[in-house]
């Protein structure tokens, strides 16, 4: 194994899964590093769960190959893989109590009784469920079941923990708390977590890297920051947060920036992304801007920034920030702008109908292909 690249603990090589003529997963090709918290993010039906189930060994690729620790695993059933899973429904065995649920995998491994007992106790302690040994599934809350499912998987010391929307069934408060605990747990055990979710905030706050999926295709794989700041396509930008999309035409390509003419906003100097092959001079592109990267001011734009005149349309007070829709002359769609809430003296500083300037810096803009 010396020739193995340590960066590739799990390799997904051109994996396609078809159910009949339906492409559940379409040519997924990437790798996951050891110790990484990796998320598969996408709307329901995007193929993220199918991909996870292929790693677990419940489904097998129609084409392509999955490698775990350098070994091809297609044809290796779930019970012979060094992965353990936390199911969406938790799948706590209803006929066994908490202790026996957690001990399930260890019993199969025929561990000596004392060692088994020690490991189960340790796992229960890790998720702070000591004292619950004799509870059954129907005597526990959703959050408790979820912890038991975690302990049951981790007690086997897998190389990879697979989590299929484990927080989906919990209410908001509990979910946030569990997110925090999951992250702590992952750092504590130091193994790879592969996490499936449709909740972008959850993915952003937990993951080292995220694969955004849609309609079976992996659109982008990047760190949360990179995904948010430099999405590589409209779909990713749209799925993660909000973005203003403005169609434009490339006027010229300078070192590091593309000059794009956008209707109503004039010329915009957008930083070039890593791959800008789509942006030839004269071609149509999209310019994207997150609402909070723009600002609303009275009079001239901020020093060193560009600006355009507009009229405040709808306003929304969101507690920590204000949302404005600003109508720009020559543009059909209004711009969404989010301004941070300062101290109380600046509350609701703009009102509908007010003439203002939208101000932005060049680095606020993202150059995207015209999907």
């Amino acid at each position, binding site marked *: 194994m010396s020739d193995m690249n340590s960066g590739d603990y799990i390799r997904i090589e051109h994996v396609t899964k078809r159910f009949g003529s339906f492409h559940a997963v379409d040519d997924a090709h990437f790798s996951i590093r050891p110790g990484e918290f990796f998320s598969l993010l996408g709307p329901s039906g995007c193929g993220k769960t199918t991909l996870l189930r292929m790693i677990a060994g*419940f489904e097998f690729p129609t084409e392509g190959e999955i490698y775990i620790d350098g070994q091809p695993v297609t044809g290796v059933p*779930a*019970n012979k893989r060094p992965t353990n899973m936390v199911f969406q*429904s938790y*799948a706590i*065995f209803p006929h066994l109590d908490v202790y026996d649920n957690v001990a399930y995998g260890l019993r*199969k491994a025929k561990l000596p009784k004392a060692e088994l007992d020690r490991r189960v106790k340790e796992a229960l302690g890790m998720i702070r469920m000591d004292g619950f040994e004799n509870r059954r599934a*129907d005597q526990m809350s959703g959050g408790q079941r979820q912890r038991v499912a975690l302990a049951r998987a981790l007690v086997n010391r897998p190389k990879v923990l697979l989590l299929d929307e484990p927080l989906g069934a919990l209410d908001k408060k509990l979910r946030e708390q569990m997110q925090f605990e999951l992250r702590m747990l992952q750092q504590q055990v130091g193994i790879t977590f592969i996490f499936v979710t449709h909740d972008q905030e959850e993915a952003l706050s937990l993951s080292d890297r995220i694969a955004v999926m849609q309609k079976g295709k992996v659109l982008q794989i990047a760190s949360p920051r990179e995904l948010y700041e430099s999405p590589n396509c409209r779909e990713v930008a749209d799925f993660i947060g909000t973005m203003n999309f403005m169609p434009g035409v490339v006027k010229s390509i300078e070192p590091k920036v593309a000059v794009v003419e956008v209707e109503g906003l004039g010329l915009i100097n957008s930083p070039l992304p890593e791959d800008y092959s789509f942006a030839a001079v004269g071609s149509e592109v999209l310019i994207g801007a997150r609402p909070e990267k723009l600002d609303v001011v009275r009079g001239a734009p901020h020093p060193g920034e560009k600006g355009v005149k507009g009229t405040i349309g709808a306003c929304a007070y969101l507690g920590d920030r204000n949302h404005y829709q600003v109508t720009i002359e020559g543009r059909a769609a209004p711009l969404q702008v989010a301004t941070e809430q300062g101290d109380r003296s600046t509350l609701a500083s703009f009102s509908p109908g007010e003439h203002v300037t939208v101000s932005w810096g060049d680095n606020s803009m993202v150059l995207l292909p015209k999907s």
Partner: protein
Amino acid sequence: MSAQPLKKIGERSWGITIFAFLYLAFLYAPMLVLPVFSFADQKVIDFPIKGFTTHWYEEMFAKPEMHKALWNSIQVGVIASLTATLFGLLAAKAITRYAIPGKSIAMGLISLPLFIPEILLGLALLIILNVAGVTLSLLTIAAGHVLLCTPFSMAVLVARLDGFDKSLEEASLDLGESGWMTFWRVTFPLIMPAVVSSLLLTFIVSFDEFLLAFFLQGTEQTLPLYIWSGLRFPSNFPPTLALGSIILVVSIVLVVFAEWLRQAGTGGGKMKVGV
């Protein structure tokens, strides 16, 4: 709109309630005949009843042929119910767990014994056993009953397995257990009530079955065959009624127990089963 007020939906109406109870009476009246006349001190089965006696029970219990027939029926019933439940379980598991091409054809074939007259099945089996040179015996009766009972068993088990959370089995596989051991450690404990219910129901079907046994019998009788021969001679009526009353009580107990298990077993993942 009509002048009379609309009747509320689901409102109890006396007509249909009375009808339902009358129907129940129609259903149970003949069944009461058995215990009533089994204690009647008379040879002719007719009203009025002349007196009370347990004589017919004594007479019935004294007959060695009855003991033999009862024992035969129990043997046949045990073999048939165990075998049919095994076949039913395999089929039910396959049907509910996997997407199988041609599934509906196989299911139709397995359910067929419910839909063809027993006389047809009996005749067809008689012919093929004869062609194959098999001597008729209790075993051939049991084989016929397996065919008849398998669709019953499959129906009971499919109902239970249908709501079975597939991820429970996947969780077991994921934790390193093999398919076979997963069945014994997870699936079987959870579907046990339905299995017991299937065993009881198929046993009753076999225990009560007459026509196939009539065709496929060798030299030994099952209980329904014994009763049949008893019903041909009026002098045998009262002891036969005594036997019938006992069978009635036992089957009621078994059916209520099986139904109770079946209901308890459909509670999904929430029920508790000791292991």
